[in-house]
């Protein structure tokens, strides 16, 4: 067993001792926020973990990495990486009873940078995540009409045909790229603010503000709806989906195992990354939420329950999504085939009904034999079910293009559209609660915002500030900016922060001390499994995933996809290289949080040196409470 612990003087003074914990909990009862009941806490954590990624990232990964076989790396890494990290964050938050900055600076002042990096990443993610919610709201507003606006192309100026861009691509593509985003052809062409997106953004931020206005006092009530509604809607969609034609082909396609994929390292890498990001670790929000718990709350059970629910939700959502995708693919296949049949019977003036899907091939032969010249002039489309099933099904493409198209083909489309977008809205909003917590509490701990100000004002200022910066995503090039931030702000820095979190708790705080804390809090020491995971396996996994990511990202050219009607292969997206100044943005967004951690440590070191030179020792800070008659202290 590795028993390395770095020297950490003053740790006792910075953290409350075990005996003081219960007393502190009593004292803080009126001043510090706390959960009304256990259900609120669990729903908030589940809501934070379960987000849009469970719906639109996991199904794609599952299908593209060998279907049912992907469950194996996913579950293995869930157990080796996700659950230990989650348990660690819950336990350390509950023990030290502070937000992320407070916890890390209590463990060692030089580690404050870890908390600040968490805050920075939470802020970056809040910026663009709420914009996605704004897009969801825009679609939600537009769902209350029949026919849905993305089911048909608009007419052109002289009403002789459809708008060209729409006719060449599809109504759903046109509605997303033109009528929603009004997208430009490159990230350079910023354009102007799209007022309709701005209105949706305002609405999204106002709803978020109402829910987080008093911290967990209000979010605790909101999560009763935002965390449970997605499951209800998913179940409704499952029932609806299974009754549609072709749903089973989608589910079969999703889960058909391809065991050879397990030999591909990218599969394991993607599984690890998905587990990690899906748990919303290293954002600081989970530590905060856990710190509002009572001291003897069973955080081990909590982490297991949340992990299981998260994994189950991913699989459940994947089933629902692929049943609908199977339906859509079957519809498209049937349409494609009908077009081919029509071409044949129109070309040869055969009676309707003579050519069906079954005898199409032989009829083709017959026609070719009877009149080869005329047959050669006919153009047939290739109808491949597999290609329809694997079309662009992740991220915003899944939600706003593929799924919306599938909805237009269902009877009672507006109802399904409203349900679907309410579900996405709730999923996104409950994740935003955690992000805002991860921004608000560190700012309070750092004393950037005065503590005397009422909470409503603090949350209002933060929401307003982030809202104003998010204007950049309402420009014509907004979607390109969002993809940029999504790829770089929410990926590499989190891996590094998580690695440092584990390292700090195990080696700077001391895993023995941590074990004693947990024994005090929940009644038994964490068993051998946790010890091995925390000390060796999970940090190693983090490091491996990070190195892999770095190698892959550094080797790749920074390219992105643009929507360009002038492209020859339109409606396919054009792959374009980023302009040079984007590299600076990437370095800023991904590099700053990573560098804050060592940077702050160096800064603290220099400050200590300077202080020692001036021969002034900082007073040892210890919690003290005023007492006139000498309260007994245990």
């Amino acid at each position: 067993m590795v028993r390395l612990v770095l020297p950490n003087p003053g740790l006792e003074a910075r953290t409350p001792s075990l005996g003081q914990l219960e007393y502190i909990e009593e004292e803080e009862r009126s001043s510090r926020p706390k959960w009304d009941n256990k259900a609120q806490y669990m729903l908030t954590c589940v809501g934070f973990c379960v987000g849009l990624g469970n719906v639109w990232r996991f199904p794609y990964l599952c299908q593209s990495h060998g279907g049912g076989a992907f469950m194996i790396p996913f579950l293995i890494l869930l157990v080796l990486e996700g659950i230990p990290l989650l348990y660690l964050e819950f336990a350390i938050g509950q023990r030290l009873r502070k937000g992320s900055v407070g916890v890390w600076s209590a463990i060692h002042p030089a580690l404050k940078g870890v908390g600040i990096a968490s805050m920075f990443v939470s802020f970056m993610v809040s910026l663009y995540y709420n914009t996605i919610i704004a897009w969801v709201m825009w679609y939600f507003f537009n769902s209350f009409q029949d026919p849905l606006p993305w089911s048909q192309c608009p007419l052109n100026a002289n009403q002789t045909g459809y708008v060209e861009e729409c006719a060449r691509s599809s109504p759903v593509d046109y509605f997303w790229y033109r009528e929603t985003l009004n997208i430009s052809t490159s990230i350079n062409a910023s354009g102007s603010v799209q007022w309709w997106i701005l209105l949706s953004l305002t609405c999204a931020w106002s709803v978020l503000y109402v829910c987080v206005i008093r911290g967990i006092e209000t979010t605790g009530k909101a999560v009763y709806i935002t965390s449970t509604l997605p499951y209800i809607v998913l179940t409704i969609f499952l029932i609806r989906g299974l009754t549609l034609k072709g749903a089973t082909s989608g589910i079969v396609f999703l889960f058909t195992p391809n065991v050879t994929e397990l030999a591909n390292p990218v599969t394991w890498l993607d599984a690890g990354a998905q587990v990690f990001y899906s748990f919303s670790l290293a954002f600081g929000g989970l530590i905060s939420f856990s710190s509002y718990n009572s001291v003897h709350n069973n955080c081990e059970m909590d982490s297991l329950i949340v992990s299981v629910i998260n994994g189950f939700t991913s699989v459940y959502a994947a089933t629902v999504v692929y049943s609908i995708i199977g339906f859509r693919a079957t519809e498209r296949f049937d349409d494609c085939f009908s077009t081919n049949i029509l071409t044949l019977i129109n070309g040869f003036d055969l009676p309707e009904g003579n050519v069906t899907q079954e005898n199409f091939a032989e009829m083709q032969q017959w026609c070719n034999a009877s009149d080869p010249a005329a047959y050669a002039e006919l153009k047939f489309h290739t109808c491949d079910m597999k290609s329809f099933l694997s079309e662009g099904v992740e991220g915003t493409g899944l939600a706003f293009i593929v799924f919306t198209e599938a909805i237009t083909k269902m009877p009672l489309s507006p109802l399904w559209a409203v349900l679907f977008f309410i579900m996405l809205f709730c999923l996104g909003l409950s994740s935003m609660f955690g992000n805002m917590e991860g921004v608000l509490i560190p700012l309070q701990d750092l004393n950037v915002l005065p503590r005397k100000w009422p909470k409503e004002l603090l949350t209002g200022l933060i929401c307003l500030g982030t809202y104003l910066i998010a204007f950049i995503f309402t420009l014509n090039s907004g979607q390109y900016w969002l993809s940029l931030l999504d790829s770089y702000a929410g990926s590499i820095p989190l891996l590094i922060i998580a690695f440092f979190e584990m390292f700090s708790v195990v080696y700077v705080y001391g895993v023995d001390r941590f074990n004693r804390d947990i024994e005090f809090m929940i009644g038994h020491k964490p068993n051998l499994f946790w010890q091995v995971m925390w000390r060796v396996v999970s940090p190693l996994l983090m490091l491996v995933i990070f190195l892999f990511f770095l190698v892959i990202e550094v080797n790749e050219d920074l390219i992105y996809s643009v929507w360009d009607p002038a492209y020859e292969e339109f409606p396919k997206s054009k792959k374009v290289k980023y302009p040079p100044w984007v590299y600076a943005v990437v370095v800023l967004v991904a590099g700053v949080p990573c560098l804050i951690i060592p940077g702050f440590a160096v800064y603290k070191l220099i400050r200590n040196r300077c202080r020692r030179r001036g021969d002034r020792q900082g007073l040892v800070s210890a919690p003290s409470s005023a007492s006139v008659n000498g309260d007994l202290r245990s």
Partner: protein
Amino acid sequence: MLWLLFFLVTAIHAELCQPDGENAFKVRLSIRTALGDKAYAWDTNEEYLFKAMVAFSMRKVPNRETTEISHVLLCNVTQRVSFWFVVTDPSKTHTLPAVEIQSAIRMNRNRINNAFFLNDQTLEFLRIPSTLAPPTDPPVPIWIIIFGVIFCIVIVATMLLILSGIQQHRRKNEGPSEMEDTEDKCENTITVENGIPCDPLDMKGGHINDAFMTEDERLTPL
């Protein structure tokens, strides 16, 4: 003689109505696709109705009010159900220009479709584009209405929460100051010192100073 005339007439007809002929249009019907089980068979009676509809459309054109059903010629009827048609002038020597026929059909497309229970996609006139129905645009886009409703609800909720927060704050601030007021009024108050109530006008004999009493218990044993 009569036989000769008959052959002459059919010969002329045959010449006027030809696939890809000048001023000839191809029509294609997809009855089974449109009506499924309720599809009717395409026979000469249906053809008669078709000729009638085309003649009707032509009669609406100025200068062509005298078009008769017999002026409309059909040819090359196939099993697909597709055929070619032309419209001849009263003398039946030449066909009417395609442009006129095109505009006439376009003006009355809806009536023709309805006569056959079909629509623009299932009753196709090749080379005659159909005017697409403009989408119904409500005066105020629906999304703005929904946005307005939700935004107003959110603003009201925000106001309520902020106001109740301010009220709670005021109540907390007024709490201690209220206590000071009542002390001045000398109502049934108990002065509290160090958490121990003491009664300054205690009429009980033998003053017991509570402060000292409890202090004994509080001192740690040696």
